[in-house]
């Protein structure tokens, strides 16, 4: 076919050029994966502003300062919970451990979300109820 004629008439330099261009284009796939962080992360926001983005694989407890004082966010075994809070009703502490979704302390304006930014395999995209 025409493609064969094309191949016959191209010089070795052309072929090198072609393959080089194809390799460069394809390497985009690899680099895109490398450049975009895919690890799930714990994101902590106060009043809508991010204050921490933490790795879920690192066990730790961080104090987060809100308008009423310190909310304590604990990360352990790839899960996260609010372990202490200055708020009155402690609903945030009662939420317990989660491995996906969000923990919220309304009075202290703290929002903790866990999960990937580009989530493909999350069991649910949102929860009603």
């Amino acid at each position, binding site marked *: 076919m*025409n*493609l064969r*004629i*094309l191949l016959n*008439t*191209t*010089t070795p330099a*052309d072929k090198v*050029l*072609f393959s080089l*261009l*194809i390799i*460069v*284009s*394809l390497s*985009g*796939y690899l680099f*895109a994966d490398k450049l975009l962080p895919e690890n799930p992360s714990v994101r902590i*926001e106060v*009043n*809508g502003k991010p204050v921490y983005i933490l790795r879920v694989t690192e066990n730790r407890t961080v104090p987060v300062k809100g308008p009423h004082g310190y909310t304590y966010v604990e990360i352990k075994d790839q899960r996260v919970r609010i372990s202490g809070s200055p708020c*009155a*009703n402690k609903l945030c502490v*009662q*939420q*317990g*451990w*989660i*491995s*996906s*979704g*969000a*923990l*919220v302390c*309304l009075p202290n*304006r703290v*929002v903790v*979300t866990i999960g990937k*930014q*580009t*989530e*493909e395999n*999350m*069991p*649910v*995209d*949102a*929860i*009603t*109820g």
Partner: protein
Amino acid sequence: MKINFILHNPEFGPGSLRYIFSVLHLSACLLLLVSLSACSSQKDRVFSKTRVLMDTAITITVVAASQEGAEKAIDSAFREIEKIGKLSDFYSSGSEISLINKKAGISGVKVSPDVLQLVEKAVYVSEKTGGAYDMTIGSVSGLYDFHKKVLPGKDAVRKGLRLVNYRDISIDRSVSSVFLKKEGMLIDPGGITKGYAADKALECLKKEGIASGIISVAGDIRAFGSKPDGRPWNIGIRNPRAESREDDVMATIELMDAAISTSGDYERFFFSDNVRYHHILDPRTGRPASRCISVSIIADEAAYTDAFSTGIFIMGPEQGMKVLEEMKFNGVIVDNRGRIHMTPGIGGRIEFKNSP
């Protein structure tokens, strides 16, 4: 065709300058093609942002090509939600809803198009649920305090109930005003505002060029379009009896262009003498409704799913299923014995995880 032209044109001898340029041109085209296809697979990503507005957590998720585009759209949707929250805040004295309440029995109040629509939709749902959903419940709901575990006395509830009747809301579209006929009446838009805000946020996202995403206003969810891989969004329905874990789901359901809301007795409640007192009050008794423990409704608009889920929760499974059939809505009802009632249209799209 281009290749043919190049190869059969006598002017294109190998080695000629034009031939080299043509090969270069071809290569460039090929490069562009390959790199474009590489881009498109990375193009659409999911971006998500959570904020506290209207005294609740709101998460907006969008599918977009760039972070900047996503954030711009999400921020504009948040501004819209904030605006609606301010107009309809039951507790803030400056809101339009408070003005309507203050002028109850005195005069009508000119309101913005948003509040007019909100009240109109609320009255519509009241009509369709035989008054089970009724935003004039404010004169009773204000007597309860679920944080301080305050139960009102019987006399106070009886007195409040006299002012509960959605038919006493008078709407004048021509001058965009709302009038409560009886003095002391209070409209509490809590059962519809969050859904309405989700609907309006969706309009904002669409204006910003977003084709798919989810707006979740504390469990009132409006989903549109699909995930980047073309699959529908997966929405979890919270397990009504897993109080310590917010992410424990009873079932997951696939949603594309629709809204879903769930009303449950587990949201704001306290126990007194082993009775669960929760925030969904029956306008006929002034007491928490007890026929259901969880009601999820699927429809086109979140304002409707929000209000109908409350109304049907109060009506109970038998009457509730009739309303769903009449409205052509889908729904899942868990009654007070843990039995699940489901509309036929939901089959195949729902997957149960744990029975409540």
